[in-house]
């Protein structure tokens, strides 16, 4: 900077531009964040002032049967990630043309990604109804199968949530994969064809490695979302989950806003954060091994 006065003004104006965000970050992000770390080590029912109890909340939590059940249910639910990633990659690959009917189909698949999860789930609650729902009606008509009591059956509730979630998220992942597929240089495919590679070789040895950054992005973000599942389980259980349908964030919500066990709820949120960070860390470790970012020039 040649002119110090001008650069001083630049600094000030720069901060003025950023100030709404900085203000928000401090009062609604960092502040609450620090407070919530404190609360995880305290006992608080919103009436009596918070009392520091050390690791009490965490010890309590790890001995809590319901917490482990919610953890287990959330883990099972996260099978929606491999299922959704596989289906969306398959569909994106088969529909990999920039224009025409496939472009239209892609925008159809995208529809549930922009409508509220609440609305999607309300529709699915009806579709999955054991007696008046379309799904069981179709299973009976087409395959002569007596469908389960989906949302009412302890063994089927989480698979039902997986169906609802995959249905809602498929279109978004298809678009991301399509972007990755379109970015591949057609000359690579031509070269492979000249070398006599068959379709499977091309897919596994060229396409898959070249779109691995997209696959990585889809898997990382989907896992984070799947561990935070709340909306669909709230609506599908009509606000009354049991040990077979309770998810981690739901249990957090119950403790914070229904039982007013603020300390315990904060502890749950930090355990959840730790789990998400751990999974993401493992994914980034695997990234080094499996994700291909080009040769670099």
């Amino acid at each position, binding site marked *: 900077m040649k002119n110090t006065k001008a650069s001083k003004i630049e600094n000030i104006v720069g901060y003025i*531009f950023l100030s709404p965000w900085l203000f928000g970050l401090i009062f*609604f992000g960092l502040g609450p964040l620090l407070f919530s770390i404190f609360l995880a080590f305290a006992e608080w029912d919103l009436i009596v002032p918070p009392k520091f109890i050390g690791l009490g909340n965490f010890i309590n939590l790890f001995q809590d049967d319901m917490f482990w059940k919610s953890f287990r249910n959330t883990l099972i639910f996260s099978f929606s990630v491999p299922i959704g990633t596989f289906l969306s990659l398959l569909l994106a690959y088969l529909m990999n043309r920039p224009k025409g009917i496939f472009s239209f189909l892609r925008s*159809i698949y*995208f529809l549930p990604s922009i409508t509220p999860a609440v609305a999607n789930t309300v529709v699915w609650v009806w579709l999955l109804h054991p007696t008046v729902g*379309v799904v069981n009606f179709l299973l009976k008509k087409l395959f002569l199968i007596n469908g389960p009591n989906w949302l009412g059956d302890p063994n089927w509730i989480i698979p039902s949530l997986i169906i609802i979630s995959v249905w809602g998220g498929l279109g978004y992942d298809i678009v991301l994969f399509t972007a990755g597929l379109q970015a591949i240089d057609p000359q690579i495919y031509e070269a492979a064809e000249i070398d006599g590679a068959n379709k499977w070789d091309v897919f596994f040895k060229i396409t898959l490695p070249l779109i691995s950054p997209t696959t990585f992005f889809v898997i990382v973000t989907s896992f984070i979302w799947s561990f*935070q599942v709340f909306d669909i389980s709230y609506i599908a259980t009509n606000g009354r989950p049991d040990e077979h349908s309770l998810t981690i964030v739901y249990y957090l919500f119950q403790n914070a806003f229904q039982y007013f066990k603020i300390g315990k709820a904060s502890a749950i*949120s930090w355990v959840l954060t730790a789990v998400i960070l751990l999974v993401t860390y493992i994914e980034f470790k695997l990234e080094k091994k499996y994700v291909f970012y080009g040769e670099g020039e």
Partner: protein
Amino acid sequence: MKIGRLLIYFFLILFAIFYLTPIYVLLVTSLKSFVEVDLKTMWRLPKTISIESFIQAWKGDPKRGLRGLSQNFMNSVYLVIPATILSAFLGSMNGYVLTKWRFKGADIIFPMLLFGMFIPYQSILIPLVQVLQKIKLYSTIPGLIFVHIVYGIPITTLIFRNYYSTIPSELIEAAKIDGADFVGIYRRIVLPVSMPAFAVVMIWQFTSIWNDFLFGLVVAPNPSVQPITVALNNLAGSYFVQWNIQMAGALITALPPLIVYIFLGRYFMRGLLSGSLSGV
């Protein structure tokens, strides 16, 4: 080879039909009167188009204590418009400062921004409610607007930052030499070329704010300020509410993002396909 292609097409069409069934059933059922809703005739188009379900879902039925969605629909409108516009503008200003203006502290600002994106929002819900109670914004629409702006800024900033990094810095330098100041450059050079990024950001924010459920549930416990997603859940949760009314309610709730998508979706798709939402 031909047969292979044909099988693929067959599979794709079958899967698309399967995928679209819920949407089809939703549409035809919401246009039926209650007497016509029957599992066996689910597929048929309504004999007479009835908007009775929409009227019931919209206005409610005070006699049975059924709350309509009309007031909550308007709540969501009052919430989503300012929150979308403000978070987009703030994101644009931040993106400009972060890419085109070197000032003291700029280097630590960006990591802080990313950090803000990764704060697990569940962990701050409880203190957030406390803060909103302290400043008397708890259970108000302005409170919700505030929350959505604050949590929207990191993503909007990131998209604008990616977009502005494609504007040549020489352009900015030239304007500086010509004597344009900070605000002038933003207004006359940066803002006019920002429209594609604004389209992506505003559609993204509009849909995610409209579709939000958890913040609405936690920050607005009072039914008269609840956004429509929370109200739809209440409507669908009442046992006596008929399916056709529930479907109409779901459709009313989904309509604004659908309309935005139908008219502006291609700008959004273009943004998505060019990677503005997938790359940091």
